[in-house]
């Protein structure tokens, strides 16, 4: 069995979630090849070659892959697929966009958000916003899946020297074109990879008040997240959303401030090691999952917390 893992990157940097995906590939067992599809992505290929778990790095460096448009990259992956028993990507928007397309081109189903590997054809994945865990067996010739990064410990990132193979074939469907991108700039750690996350909900009242959370986050070296209510109310941008339709996080410490704890939000954070809830409503559902709950007005408790860290 040889497994193809799709590298998550931005043409400059290999994203840490790739290491978690490789860990899932190791659990399946077999040789692992890592595909880096991008443009001007040599630094990513160099980083990929140093991962001991990887036997071979395939590099497709071409303008057609610069923004990893699904139309183009899916055809590239399809052209490689025959040599592989499994094709894995992380549960990021890039892979979620592209891998179902690959699966359909190969006439196989895709398994989304796999959180445990039972065997080479049996996997566990969450359904109904994480309120049930399904064990699914696939009889497809090639198993295509996205992997929930927070469910797998990352593999070692350095010390290896994998063979690097350049792919010359260019797949350009020509039906889609990148126009532009607005990436939110932040000096804090990435939400899905942070070991501490401080999140705010509707209780924050407005966007300016998130500054209170930012201060706590800066002291803890934490990332700042939000509930859907806070995003929909326009307090913060949507890439901060934690939940069923946002990002899945499983940090060591999750501090939920002014968040009631709707099931859609819990789906995104209930695998956190320690959950702290600060809410003035003592009946809020968040207290049913919190290890430490503080019933208090967040506008008094959060500045006090910041002062005592």
């Amino acid at each position, binding site marked *: 069995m040889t497994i193809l893992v799709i590298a998550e990157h*931005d043409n400059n940097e290999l994203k840490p979630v790739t290491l978690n995906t490789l860990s899932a590939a190791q659990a399946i067992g077999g040789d692992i090849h890592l595909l880096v599809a991008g443009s001007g992505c040599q630094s990513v290929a160099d980083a990929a070659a140093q991962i001991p778990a990887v036997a071979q790095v395939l590099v497709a460096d071409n303008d057609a892959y610069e923004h990893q448009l*699904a*139309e183009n990259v*899916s055809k590239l992956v399809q052209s490689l697929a025959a040599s592989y028993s499994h094709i894995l990507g992380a549960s990021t*928007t*890039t892979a*979620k*966009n592209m891998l*179902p397309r*690959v*699966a*359909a*081109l190969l006439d196989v*189903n*895709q*398994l*989304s*958000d796999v959180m445990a590997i039972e065997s080479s054809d049996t996997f566990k994945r*969450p*359904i109904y*916003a994480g*309120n*049930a*865990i*399904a*064990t*699914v*067996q*696939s*009889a497809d010739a090639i198993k295509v899946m996205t992997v929930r990064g927070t469910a797998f410990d990352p593999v070692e990132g350095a010390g290896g020297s994998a063979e690097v193979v350049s792919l010359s074939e260019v797949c350009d*469907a020509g*039906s*889609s*074109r*990148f*126009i532009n*991108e*607005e990436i*939110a700039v932040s000096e804090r750690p990435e939400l899905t990879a942070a070991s501490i996350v401080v999140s705010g909900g509707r209780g924050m009242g407005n966007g300016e008040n998130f500054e209170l959370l930012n201060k706590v986050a800066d002291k803890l070296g934490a990332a700042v997240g939000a509930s859907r209510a806070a995003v929909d109310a326009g307090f913060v941008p*949507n*890439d901060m959303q934690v939940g*069923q*339709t946002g*990002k899945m996080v499983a940090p060591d*410490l999750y501090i939920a401030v002014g968040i009631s704890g709707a099931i859609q939000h819990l789906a995104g954070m209930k695998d956190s*090691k*320690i*959950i*702290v809830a600060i809410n003035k409503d*003592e009946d809020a559902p968040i207290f*049913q*999952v919190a290890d*430490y*709950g*503080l*019933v*208090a007005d967040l506008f008094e408790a959060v500045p*006090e*917390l910041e002062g*005592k860290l």
Partner: protein
Amino acid sequence: MKVLVAVKRVIDYNVKVRVKADNSDVDLANVKMALNPFCEIAIEEAVRLKEAGVADEVVVVSIGSKSCEEQMRTALALGADRGVRVDTGDGLDSLSVAKLLAKVVEKEAPGLVILGKQAIDSDNNQTGQMLAALLDRPQGTFASKVAVEGDKVQVTREIDGGLQTVELLMPAIVTTDLRLNEPRYASLPNIMKAKRKPLDLLTPDELGVAVSSNLTLLSVEPPAERQAGIKVSSVDELVEKLRNEAKVI
């Protein structure tokens, strides 16, 4: 231009699901069902395109048993013109649904197909992408803005770091994210009118698609239960517990 919208009947999003005692699946007996929230957004977007004069007909399609006609009527009450149901069992896998939808799309020849980005029951987030692949058409997934211009559509997508805009040659497939729009409520007169709108029936045989799956659901279990912890009385106590008991800061 014609717009095709695919909708799915799912458990209402407020319902706390229960796993069956024999772990075969979740228990859907006597549970409130509804239109998948992302599909509702897809309908709203199609109806807005019609109101803006961009689309001239909105066709709603659903794959499943007769019971999903209830949700199709909701879609018709929200402004779709007519419906097509492909008569199958419920709970088909994404690839089968995409194959059936692809045949309906070939028949109807819409300029735009709009789907929700994921159904809140299976949480797959696959059907739109698979449909686009089968039709060899471009896709604009997780859309928070859709702008049609001539034979092209510009889609602003919600990606992990922020937003990305792509331009697609139509016909194209778009899947909706939550922030695309705020769906309207169906008024009583529109609900009455929707009862008279045409709703056609197709079978997988007529579409030439054999429905089968390589996926087997072995078991469904409730997730590990998380126990409620303790309530602390002050910020001091909280900090003390996090430092000395949980050792996370």
